[in-house]
């Protein structure tokens, strides 16, 4: 349920941006979420949809891109893509992967209107 705090943080950032950039409403928000970020996409969308009414995000569409996780194998030194912390190294098969990326949760951009 940490997705609820995350959604609240996202809405706060959008409201701040609205003040800074002088827009009135958002029609599309694009998010990027790493596969290792520990964020449940369904739960985050649900939380955002529930909180958007009454804000400048009301009626906005959400586009969420999932970014693959990346890791380095401590056994064969390969740099690989992974879906979760449970994956084995696709090159050598050993469970010696140290995650190096894919934990990000980012707002990429917004399509906004001034009214």
């Amino acid at each position, binding site marked *: 349920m940490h997705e609820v705090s995350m959604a609240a943080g996202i809405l706060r950032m959008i409201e701040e941006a609205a003040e800074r950039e002088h827009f009135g409403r958002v029609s599309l928000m694009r998010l990027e979420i790493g596969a290792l970020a520990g964020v449940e996409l369904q739960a985050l969308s649900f939380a955002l949809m529930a909180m958007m009414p009454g804000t400048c995000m009301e009626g906005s569409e959400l586009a969420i891109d999932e970014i693959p996780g990346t890791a380095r194998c401590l056994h064969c030194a390969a740099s690989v893509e992974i879906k979760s912390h449970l994956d084995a190294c696709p090159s050598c098969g050993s469970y010696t992967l*140290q995650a190096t990326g894919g934990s990000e949760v*980012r707002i990429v951009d917004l*399509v906004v209107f001034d009214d």
Partner: protein
Amino acid sequence: MCVICGCNAESDPERTNARKTPSGASPIPAESVGEDLHYGIGAARASVPGISQARVIQMEADVLGENKRLASRNRAHFAAHGVSAFNLVSSPGSGKTTLLCTSINALKFRHPGLGVAVIEGDQQTSMDADRIRATGAPAIQVNTGRGCHLDAQMVGDAFSRLDLHARAHQGHGGEALLFIENVGNLVCPALWDLGEAAKVVVLSVTEGEDKPLKYPDMFAAATLMVINKIDLLPYVSFDLSRCIGYARQVNPGIEVLLLSATTGEGIEPWLDWLLPKHGDPEHRPAANPLEHGTATPRIAASPAATS
């Protein structure tokens, strides 16, 4: 043909639109280029009276950026006060508070001058903080209400109310330990950096050895796994080596310690881990392996765990 009203005007459609704006409708936003007005410069390449143009705002913003900023501030604040902070995470009932009470009592004999304080996170009640205060150590209870985790702001606010903070300002600084007992939850606290030196995940043998696979994010984020309640091992079916194997599958660098907070067995190596010898910067690895990219395998602190 004009896309707005369907007339066959041959003139510049943008200008046509402008002329046909019905009175009373909201003005169409226009860009002026030289002496001319252009109404179709927005993303839609056309304009409709009463509807404003879309534009794109590049955000490129980290959703957890504000928490990370506050966590860095906490980290700097702790360092300036000589405080080593540890974020204890686990499911409810693994024995975090008992472990802290036992540790505080043991530290009184081992390091009588050491400052120790606790920030207790729970949804409700001050029961845990009361248990800590009964040992004589200062504790601040943070009730998160409906919240499922502590965040950096809460920890920063709580730290400023603690004696450890005042002590350093009065010149009685020196080394000190701050334990942050997070809300009992193996999911959400994994994501929130509080400014700690390390996350310590506590797992008790009554919970089952498969927890590291069921909640991989938490075990991936932790520097140390403490397996608690080992005095109960004869009574439960818990495969220690399988549990450690699962934790290393998720996080090959995770260190492991075995102890019983109730009997005190294994407490000394745990205190050794918390209070590394000075001048040994290698001892305590970076708090977030994802961000610092530490790829060096670490040696388990407990010989029992490596066998």
